[in-house]
């Protein structure tokens, strides 16, 4: 796996929400779920480019704010087969609360 890059602190993202960050020239969305997990994905919705960080989370599901399509944050899999999967990135919160993200992308493979 590639080097982990510190990008922010867990407390920068309110629980249940997502925020966009720029890392090494690319933008990624980081989500902090209510249960305390963190996930990183591409920032724009595969459907029509909606800002996923502005979506609604529930469990590990993200719902895009523009047309309410949804994906699993952990795997990048779309809930409906007709959508394309999300690119996801490995991310974790270190003991001191620093968020570390791994690049480059791992793409979820459909089935």
């Amino acid at each position, binding site marked *: 796996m590639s080097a982990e890059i510190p990008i922010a602190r867990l407390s*920068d993202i309110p629980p249940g929400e997502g*925020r966009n960050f*720029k890392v090494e020239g690319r933008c990624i969305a980081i989500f902090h779920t*209510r249960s305390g997990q963190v996930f990183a994905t591409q920032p724009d919705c595969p459907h029509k480019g909606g800002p996923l960080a502005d979506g609604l989370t529930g469990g590990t599901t993200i719902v895009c*704010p523009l047309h309410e399509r949804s994906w699993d944050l952990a795997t990048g899999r779309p809930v*409906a087969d007709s959508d394309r999967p999300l690119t996801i990135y490995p991310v974790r919160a270190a003991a001191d609360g620093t968020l570390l993200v791994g690049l480059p992308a791992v793409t979820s493979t459909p*089935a």
Partner: protein
Amino acid sequence: MAKQKLVVVGNGMAGARAVEEVLARGGADMFDIFMFGDEPYGNYNRILLSNVLSGAQDTEEIFLNPLSWYAENGITLHAGARVTDIDRYAKVVIADNGVREHYDRLLIATGSRAFMPPIKGLHGADGSLKPGVFGFRTIDDCNGMIAASAPGRKAVVIGGGLLGLEAARGLMNHGCEVHVVHLAGHLMEQQLDFTGGTILKSGMERMGIAVHLQKSTTEILGEGRVTGLAFKDGTTLDCDLLVVAAGIRPNAEIGHRAGLTVERAIVVDDHMRSVDDRTIYVVGECAQHRGRVYGLVAPLWDQAKVFADHLTGRNIDAAYHGSKLATKLKVMGVELASMGLTETQEERDELVQFVEPKRGIYKKLIVRDGRLVGGILMGDIGKAAYLMQAFDRDSPLPEERLSLLFDIGAPSQKVTIDEMPADAQVCNCNGVTKAAIGTCIAGGAKTTKAVMGATRAGMGCGSCKGLMNEVVAWFLGGAVEEDPSVHYYVPCIPLKKPELVAEVRARNLRSVSAVFRELAGGVEDAQSKPALASLLSVVWRGDYIPEADARFINERAHANIQKDGTFSVVPPMAGGATTPAELRRIAEVAEKYNVPMVKVTGGQRIDLLGVKKEDLPKVWADLGTHSGYAYGKTYRTCKSCVGTDFCRFGLGDSMKLAAQIEDRFKGIDSPHKMKLATTGCPRNCAEALIKDVGAVAIGDGKWEIYVGGAGGSHVRKGDLLCTVGSHEEVLLYAGRFMQLYREEAKYKERTYTWVERVGIERVRAIVMEDSEGIAARLDAAMQESVDAFIDPWKQIIEKGMDRADAAMTATVGSGA
């Protein structure tokens, strides 16, 4: 024994069904299964594309095998990969993305594609269809058509067969002006005779679709994009989009290139095996069996079973003997059943016929030697199940021919289901028999929905749903349960709204996460969050714990999200009244933040569109107003006319009333948005009759209050709630009405749906006559919500938008 490799080319209705049949015979232990599909999805029900196009269903709803199904069954799916070649000597298939897969057994199920007749101008310079031209075969075709259609656009469909008419219906639903251009002398000549086609044509014309028969298209006009059609008779027809539904062509080229015998499609034997290669099977629309190629789903279910029996060795004598085609369809709302011949062919053929053109009813049967060889039923297909069965089984018909067409002396439906043999098919699309439904119910299913989910009955064209319901009810002895979740406030908590409110109060739940924890077993559901947040704010007024993540982005950012992720900002402007100073300030803000569009809204306000998220707090601060609430599920705005100040017809001070309404109700949360208006006379310039709440001055200081009006996607004149004598009374009764709506309506239910659901009489009784003794409580609750108003813009400006939000592109890391 080592497993063999089964490779399937084509992941459509036949291919996926064939694999299901293999799995049902224990095939997973015998084969590693690999599938290739040209379309980048799992397998979906192609028949339902008609519903997707008409807007009745979402693409999400029509999937039969979602991607997870493949994973769960250990099948490797190459979705979005088109197989270009089969190397029969190396036993390898090669896909356009470079994937190669070895096979021991190969199944070709590539189906068909839309046939594009050789008409000049159909294709652009690059060989692809000219922009604006569509086939009707795939999800992508549907999405393309939907994107291209809009109210007032002119759409032409070439082809008056089943597909063409379905396309016409769908496009009409999108508001297009629709023309059907057909080469033959009557519509649906495959299934109907001249009389039937003519009745159908007048039905379509009544619905506003223009039908042009015996029209031969010679050229598609338009340079970059389609603009019209030219016909052989010299006439032309303009259009904005064109759907070509002129038939289908089997995707058989792949067999041809591999050296298999191909006539109209790939030729197979009775085991559904290519006549040239014992390791290659073919099913579906790309197969030709005994000279016939099928274009409906029923035959391919039988083919899939024969293939699976033979492949797995379950029955190596399994043989397909061809199918007799009988279909039940709903075309443009007309119910239709068609089987076998449409015209008599031999001297001895007997014709039994009934026509009632005025009601669109037509029944025609062709009887040969006492057996049914053809039939058409239109408008009334009550006898279809019986006739289709008689046709399929070649069973002798009763001497009394009249009883074939009508239920004389009406033996009830109950009797017919009693008499229906166990193996009679209820759902022809998915091949589900009466017995299969019985087994499913014996296994515990108690609702029609559960039976549909388990057997797929009724999930094809949907025309059997009525019969399905009756069969289910018959098995359950009438004890069908309705799926209860439709009445829940949110799907994840099994409570109706009043029960949920009571629970929330009893357990003192003051945040959305507390509700999930206590009432939903700790399982969060994203889509339920905003509904719960809205409910809490109504129950607890100001006194609950707001959780931003439970709110839709508009209510989190206090602005309206746009398609590009920017926001629109609408400062308040009660009744549309403003001042030069206010306008100047708005103009300055627009310039300072490079707002790309400034637009007057339908609610008489000014919309600043295209504001970046990180600029929002600064824009609000510079505007210096409270929030205009143009984004939430809340009270939105109150339009008004100039009323008495300047208008020579004005009877009441509508501007002042609008300002009072706005001042009182601004920001009030509700199940859906509430748009209000006041007008100073019954000329109704501010459209108060089509608002959620509207007040109309009628003179002598009197106001009429209308509620439940709508002037958007749905148009409805509001119901008169009452006539009152002062502004204060308008505020009182409008407020009481709104509070009742806030407490009772489902989330996202507009007042016009709610008023219709519960009835204006009941609303009037509660609000005006206090029939339930809750008026005082409603008024107090509304007052508390009014008192709890906090301006979200001001709050955020004071706090400073949270750090990460403002630094939406916080740059971290090296080498950026």
